[in-house]
């Protein structure tokens, strides 16, 4: 599977996204149309309003998509301040964390400050082992593993076997490449 992302523009459904019914329809189309893609960018460009029931449906399907296909990135882009606020309320209630691209940088929505700091440092490294990142953050490995698991479930990291490992099994983590970084002002 190529890691090249598919951008899924929500503007095709209108500038106002509301009701649980529409959310379920959009989420199902999104899932069906991105099954074989190496990564997904859910693009909120031009969306003015997305209600909490709509976002709740979308978030639940995104969480399932990430869990079903953990070796691909799933990111959100071009959320205005209002959308980000509403999404945060929805995700906090569901205990879900998702990842947004803002001005070319990765941030979590629904995550803690520590999780964002971990993501920022991970992003500096790009591809890394848990030990690399633990050293950089001055954290013990068990503490870091929990954060790495959360970031993987948020669609911000993918992991794969490290072929250069000389003994046993070692995992390599990776953050999204430049083709996932929606440039500022692109919307």
């Amino acid at each position: 599977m190529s890691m090249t992302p598919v951008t899924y523009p929500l503007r095709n459904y209108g500038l106002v996204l509301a009701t649980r019914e529409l959310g379920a329809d959009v989420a199902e189309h999104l899932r069906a149309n991105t099954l074989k893609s190496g990564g997904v960018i859910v693009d909120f460009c031009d969306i003015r309003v997305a209600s909490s029931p709509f976002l709740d449906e979308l978030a639940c399907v995104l969480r399932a998509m990430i869990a079903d296909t953990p070796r691909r990135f799933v990111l959100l882009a071009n959320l205005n301040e209002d959308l980000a606020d509403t999404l945060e309320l929805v995700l906090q209630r569901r205990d879900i964390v998702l990842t947004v691209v803002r001005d070319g940088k990765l941030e979590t929505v629904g995550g803690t400050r520590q999780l964002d700091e971990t993501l920022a440092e991970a992003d500096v490294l790009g591809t890394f082992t848990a030990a690399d990142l633990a050293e950089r953050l001055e954290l013990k490995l068990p503490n870091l593993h929990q954060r790495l698991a959360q970031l993987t479930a948020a669609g911000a990291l993918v992991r794969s076997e490290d072929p250069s490992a000389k003994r046993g099994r070692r995992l390599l983590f990776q953050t999204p490449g430049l083709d996932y970084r929606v440039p500022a002002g692109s919307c």
Partner: protein
Amino acid sequence: MGPEPAESEWLSLVGDLRRRVALQCLLGESEGHSELVVFAPQVERVDAVAGAALRVRIDRHLRQFPDGRVMIEPPTRSLPAEHLRELITPLPEGVTFGEHDREDEIARFALVPATIVQDHEAAVAAAGYALEACEHARIADRRANLAAAAVAELSNNALQHAAGSDQAPAVAVTVSGRERVIEVAVVDLGTGISSSERPADALTHIASPEHGNGFLADFLRRGSKRDLDVSIEILSGTATLRRTWAAHRTENGSFVPGTTVVARIAA
């Protein structure tokens, strides 16, 4: 000899036609005549609830009498007449509003005229219209976005939960006063809450910011986070619930049919 003139049902409206009074006056039982006269020369004030309730009454009447007519005699005073005209135009076929036809004028009070919402797609379309109207009225995005979401979700809630009635709900949105307070009103004729033994108890379980997981709770949360003065008012049967982020209060009063939700967004 021609056919005998149809008997008319008269609804005489006076004074302050808002909230509970509007619902009681406009949503009572019909007398079964094909011609409905809404006689409102003495009406002094109207609100979004009055507009939505009148629209429901008109829709109910014209579904009962497909060839029937509705004649609205507008308020004598110019301000309530203008507000009512904005709320009720464009007029459905078979409905007249006084003598004049001024549908092309820009609405300053009714951001969204009273509109019947048949399904969830219509609810989203009404929200899109509300957003454009707010933009046209130069209402800031943070209030406009909240109003648009309220239009869609409150209408859809009414479609989903208005048990015991085949009448579609109506939504209307107004902006008024020096502070340009926005009110989104959705009126339905569902009997689930209004005919329950204790409507006040049923309403207290709705819209709790601490425990609720539906739109009403989110509306209050978002308003609070954005430093907006927002509140919810629900009228159903004999009960009224008023809720803000910090407090809620229920009151009992005289009976109104159905359930009406008013979302208020001040600056």
